[in-house]
């Protein structure tokens, strides 16, 4: 579902070879590490202060494939819209 985001530029690859995907592409229970944030200044500041900084481990607690999702970052549950989650690029942990 996540490839529908308007925010994503078409020139960007959907998934790079090293497994970097938007947070919204992770399924429930998947773990990853934040790689990069791409958002305007205001949203970027909020994301960073809520703990989404490069290197931070995240896991997805709930993602039904549509609507908002819940992520766990730095010991806290954060609810975020699908659009917002699409702006947080993460690298899946290899299992």
């Amino acid at each position, binding site marked *: 579902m996540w490839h529908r985001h308007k925010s994503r530029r078409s020139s960007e690859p959907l998934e790079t070879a090293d497994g970097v995907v938007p947070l919204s592409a992770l399924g429930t229970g998947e773990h990853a590490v934040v790689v990069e*944030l791409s958002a305007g*200044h*205001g*949203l*970027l*500041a*909020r*994301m*960073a*202060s*809520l*703990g989404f*900084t*490069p*290197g*931070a481990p995240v896991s997805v*607690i*709930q993602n*039904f494939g*549509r*609507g*908002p999702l*819940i992520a766990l970052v*730095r*010991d*806290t*549950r*954060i*609810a*975020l*819209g699908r*659009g*917002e989650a699409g702006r947080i690029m993460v690298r899946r942990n290899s299992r």
Partner: protein
Amino acid sequence: MTVGPVQAVEQAIRNGSELAQSSVVVALAGRPNVGKSTLFNLLTGLNQHVGNWPGKTVERKAGYFTFDDRTYELVDLPGTYSLTANSAEEVVAREYIIRDQPDVVIAMVDAATLERSLYLVAELVTLPAPVVVGLNMIDVARQEGMEIEPDVLSAALGVPVVPMVAAKGEGVRELLVVIDDVVNGRVPYSPKPPQIRADHQAVLKDILELIGGSVPAPYPEDWVALKLLEGDQEITKLMKRSVAEDIWEHVYAILRDHDDALVAVAGGRYEWIGRMVRAAVTRPKAGQIGLTERLDRWATHPFWGVLILAGILGLAFWLTYTVGTPLQDLLDAYVVTGLANLVGAWMAGTPAWLSGLVVEGIIGGVGAVITFLPILVIFFAVMGILEDVGYMARAAYVMDGFMHLMGLHGKSFLPLFLGFGCSVPAILGARVIDSKRARLLTIFLAPLIPCTARMAVIAFLAPAFFGSSAMLVSWGLVLLVLAVIAIAGVLLNKLMFHGERAAFIMELPLYHVPNWRTIGLLMWQRSLSFLQKAGTLILVVSVVVWALSRLPGGELGSSYLAAVGHWLEPVGRYMGLDWRLIVALLASFIAKENSIATLGVIFGTGGGGLAETLAATYSTATGLAFLVTQMLFIPCVATVAAIRQETGSWRWTLFNLAFLLALSLVAGAAVFWLAQIVGL
């Protein structure tokens, strides 16, 4: 029993009764849901005043208490996660600390979510006022298997740390002793603030050198440099004014090349937090499934979550009708009518206009608003409990998708829903929305939600006009209004905010047992401060509308209000309304249900037979058009006062009213025209 220790602390801390000349000023900072209000209420009790921060619509709470014969002023800063310029709350908090320089800042921290809570501390320790950390909810942390060493944390931070359980009064006395020690310089204070991430340290140094010497007075230089790198708009504006133009060009060039520095600053703070946590937490949270996780499996589920929300809201409305409405009737019958009779008898000797003014104008008008107090209080209580327990964020989460349809996000749902009870708590409830844009839009739409008073008018008139299909028509009206709200929401969002939806990203706090004291005080303050602020406006409008309806002759039929009604008849004709229905609409400005009482007076029917008389007088098309118009018409004066209070702007309030007026007239005319075509 948890009461014991609280009382013991209360006995030691007398709630200061008056402003002492040489009081110590203590500011209370912390993120939301950290127990800040609990500590504030414990220390100041009922001796607190609620107002607004100058020039802002952010609530300002301050109070006094005495401890060890010293008087303290406690200023409750708005609950914030950080101190950026992204919200009015955060600006208020940091400006207060920098400009007013309190003697001590208490930083409340939730031990169970230490990592998250320390972010604000990382910002606070860079400001000029000394910080004392209140490590709250240490009991919850222990329950979750976490072990924290306050002394180690204190050594790592370079700041005193006091473990506490504010809800039980534990650690409060110790906190006050430490504050006293800090104020009197008995403990060394040498905070170890976080550093920016290594890759940006050189840039920070460059900026610091450039702006050195030209930072205006109370602002610390290194803090300003950091905020510039963070891209902080307020500080950028400030420095652009303060620094020589050629130097600013240099600074600006550096900032432009490092517009991602904000992530490095935040990253640096989290690295610092990581060191603190690794040092002080000797045993991390056990991997067990906590209460929050178990509850959230249901509460945030797309299906069950909505069902639970519906149940909770159903309960709130059941409470309103089984407790609120009877109380409302009791208030009306005994307090308002009783007072009116008493004063009427007492003023029997005075001129008729004077007793009329007092009994009908003031007591009648203000009384109509006062009788809504029970419903208001019930809704404040519901909001307070849901917020305090931590459920509010879940409600926002499950309703987010639905609210998108209106150009809003989940946080607007609960305030808007409360509008079905009364518009006032809906508008005051919009405070939970952190984005100003979404808050304004929610306030704008809230008066459109049909409140109980508007529904009462429909319940009275619909059966007379539509007989057995009254229920169907009532539901149709509500659906029509909801559709109007959705369309208005999307359009306003497009026109005023260029379709940009406020970002939806928020913490889902851990659930905890509600603190009744906090909720009780919140209800008390909200109700009281609303009555205080709205009181004058309600009084003035009541008297004016009464005077218009009585002067010059004493009869409504020949009054100025009737004259206005006659004068507006050419407009009313589009909606099939004659002067009497227009007067009824105008009179509903005091309280929505007044339109029925006014029609009763005009038709001289009193209570009985009015509905039948109306049905005989007017066509069904007129009846329908009147109902539609009154559903969308400008709200009652109490709601207007609430809009003014929450937006802080008369211009915005008047714009809102003009919009509602235009909407109601257009919709009324459209419905009248359609109904005539159909042949009603």
